[in-house]
């Protein structure tokens, strides 16, 4: 995090070179999130300043809005749909593969996004859960694609992995903004991005991005790495551990 003096120093050249468009100076409370044994999720504070040309707030009465998006690494996934087979049991039937679905997606905005931007602009910037570009790898009919996309978003939303928080961005005096996004424990590790969008009058005027690295650390990292790289040794340790537990318990129990 920047100190006050540091912030002023950083802002000075921007103020001088200000153009006709406003500029965003964003930051996040944590650039690195370390997953350790007690990890149950993390609250990320996304905050920053809006710099207007000439350092003056625009004199028209159109409101300025901020949209903040936190995205996890994209994954290639397969979505399956259950269907009742012969009126008897539910089995997986239809499926659809997506090449790049975000593993985590949270959008916070100062007002509901649908009232800020039209559908096309929302789709371009992927703002909002109904505007995600999921890029299905298998071609399918439109209604089927919609059905699957809806099912996927609904599932991820209830797992806390896709989040929409209208009104969660707070703007102070038209220049400072802040929002809290909660990262649940279930997220995959990797590079996350925090994007901030400045919206005025139905247009996106400025975009700024910060990276957040989420990784396992300490013992958790050691275990995950061993399982991946030394699979045989890892398996042997698991077996020895279970034998030792069972044997030890037997020994202790015979003493009493």
């Amino acid at each position: 995090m920047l100190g006050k003096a540091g912030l002023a120093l950083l802002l000075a050249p921007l103020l001088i070179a200000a153009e006709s468009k406003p500029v965003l100076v964003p930051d996040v409370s944590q650039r690195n999130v370390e997953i350790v044994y007690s990890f149950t999720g993390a609250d990320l504070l996304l905050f920053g300043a809006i710099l207007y040309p000439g350092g003056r707030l625009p004199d028209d009465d159109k409101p300025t809005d901020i949209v903040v998006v936190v995205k996890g690494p994209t994954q290639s996934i397969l979505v399956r749909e259950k269907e009742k087979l012969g009126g008897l049991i539910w089995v997986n039937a239809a499926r659809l593969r997506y090449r790049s679905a975000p593993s985590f997606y949270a959008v916070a905005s100062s007002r509901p996004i649908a009232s800020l931007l039209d559908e096309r602009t929302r789709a371009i910037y992927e703002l909002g859960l109904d505007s995600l570009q999921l890029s299905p790898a298998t071609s399918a009919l439109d209604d089927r694609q919609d059905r699957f996309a809806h099912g996927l978003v609904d599932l991820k939303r209830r797992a806390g992995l896709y989040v929409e928080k209208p009104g969660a961005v707070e703007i102070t005096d038209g220049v400072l903004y802040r929002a809290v996004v909660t990262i649940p424990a279930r997220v995959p590790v990797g590079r996350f991005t925090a994007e901030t969008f400045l919206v005025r009058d139905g247009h996106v005027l400025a975009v700024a991005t910060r990276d957040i690295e989420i990784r396992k650390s300490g013992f958790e990292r050691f275990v995950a790495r061993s399982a991946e790289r030394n699979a045989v040794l890892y398996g042997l340790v698991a077996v020895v551990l279970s034998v030792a537990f069972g044997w030890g318990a037997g020994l202790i129990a015979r003493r009493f």
Partner: protein
Amino acid sequence: MDIYLPIANLSVNALVIVLLGGGVGLLSGMLGVGGGFLTTPLLIVYGIPPTVAAASAASQVTGASVSGVFAHFRRDGVDTKMGGVLVAGGLLGSLAGGQVFRLLQATGQIDTVIAIIYVLLLGFIGSMMGREAIGAIRVSRGAAAPRARKRRHHPLVAALPFRTRFYRSGLYISPLAPLLLGFFIGILTILLGVGGGFILVPAMLYLLGMTTQVVVGTSLFQTLFVTAMATMVHATTTKAVDIVLAALLLLGSVAGAQVGARFAAKAKPEYLRLALAIIVLSLAVWIAIGLGWRPAEIYSVEAS
């Protein structure tokens, strides 16, 4: 107390997992079964991904069977020759099971297949055990005992070639029969994360016709090796063994198993068998209803 599971990639309440292991351990100690058939479904209900649940439950069964095997060895209750043949079949079966697991995973039907196998097996064994236990209870209450069934192996077993002697089991049969039995159990161990004791024990009694004194010890012997192999197969293929989850389960289950064993020493065995039959049957009914009920989630997501 929340703890992060590094392979399952989620945070769980450690106390819940230890208690879950303890409850299963209590039952397994009381009833002489590994308890894997309870652990895996319970873990899935708690929100652990099914693959991780099946892979990690196997190591709990290993832990549960170790102290039992030692105890039976001290009493000379293990036929190592028979056990060795069963283990050999089990190892081949677990390798084949790994392939079947991957194939079913690719077609997306693994969950349905697991559920159907559970319903069939648990339903069959539960009703068999229940009938036998009720019969035994009737006898203990003064009904006339039915004529003892002559211990004999199944005619199909007798027809197999290469007969050899299994002295401790009191058998002169082909090793192909226990090999096939072990193979079948090995596949189930991989698919369901169970030790298979609840299938192996009746099969040893009624199909092979083994002497009762060595049945439980030999079954535990086989379970120990095959679940250990299953852990290895999962560690190298699905990479879904969560050692932290396994340790938590073990902590609860080995303690529970010792307590359960003390209980069992005081209780009447036929009532215990009836209790196990009721548990097994209700689990079968529960899973069967789950198959036909509209699932909570129509959509499921997996990495590809």
